[in-house]
């Protein structure tokens, strides 16, 4: 998905993991995914660089669809669709 498309997405839940280090964002994602239904969209805020590699890997394993990343000034927004 393009950055523009991602920006226009309306996530069903937003998980703010900014200010936490590994494995904080991953644990936050795990918690957040439990709160939405299959096919719904989750957005994760993270200021941890590693998250950008970790969350796509996690999605692959958990069969969630990783939609993409939007970079903001001091953090990243990661989008995914629950399997």
């Amino acid at each position, binding site marked *: 998905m393009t950055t523009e498309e991602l920006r226009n997405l309306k996530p069903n839940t937003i998980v703010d993991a900014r200010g936490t*280090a*590994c494995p904080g964002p*991953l644990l936050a994602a*795990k918690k957040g995914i439990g709160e939405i239904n299959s096919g719904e969209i989750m957005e994760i805020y993270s200021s941890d660089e590693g998250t950008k590699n970790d969350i796509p890997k*996690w999605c692959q394993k958990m069969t969630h669809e990783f939609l993409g990343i939007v970079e903001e000034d001091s953090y990243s927004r990661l989008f995914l669709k629950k399997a």
Partner: protein
Amino acid sequence: MNIELEKQFQELQERVKKLEIGTKDQLSMVVFSGDLDKILAALIIATGAAAYDMKVKLFFTFWGITALRDPKKKGKGKNLIEEMFGMMLPKGAGKVKLSKMNMGGMGTAMIKGIMKKHKVASLKEMLKTAGEIGVEINICEMSMNLMGFKKEEMIDYPGVTICGVATFLSDAQESKIQLFI
């Protein structure tokens, strides 16, 4: 002919069963070290694996057990040597030291400051998270006896169990990942 086929089928079934034992989405880890850095690594891997929906079983043994002591609790009925062990070993996750660059406690204090700055959770917080996310903790009974630790002086952790090597082995055997830290 039919009997022959049936025999083969049974054999295959048994082989599949055996293969399936080793393929559980499970992580077994021996936490042997009593060092801040190593236990932190163990807990990060453990909670990370739990986020991957893996079943996680930690087997705390030897120096690792010191991180599970509750400084507010006291074990009963210890002899002199056990009391001494208890006094000399770190009393809980807040007291364990770095494996390198401890420098009489200065290094450990420094790294704790740096961890806070980088928003890395403390061992205590990691243990709490591990409990919430369902990481299982087993403690080696033999090590407890050797060092004179009592169950009543361990932290309140959901479902913590005192057990032996057989528990670790049977867990490890059916785990996809086995680690020793």
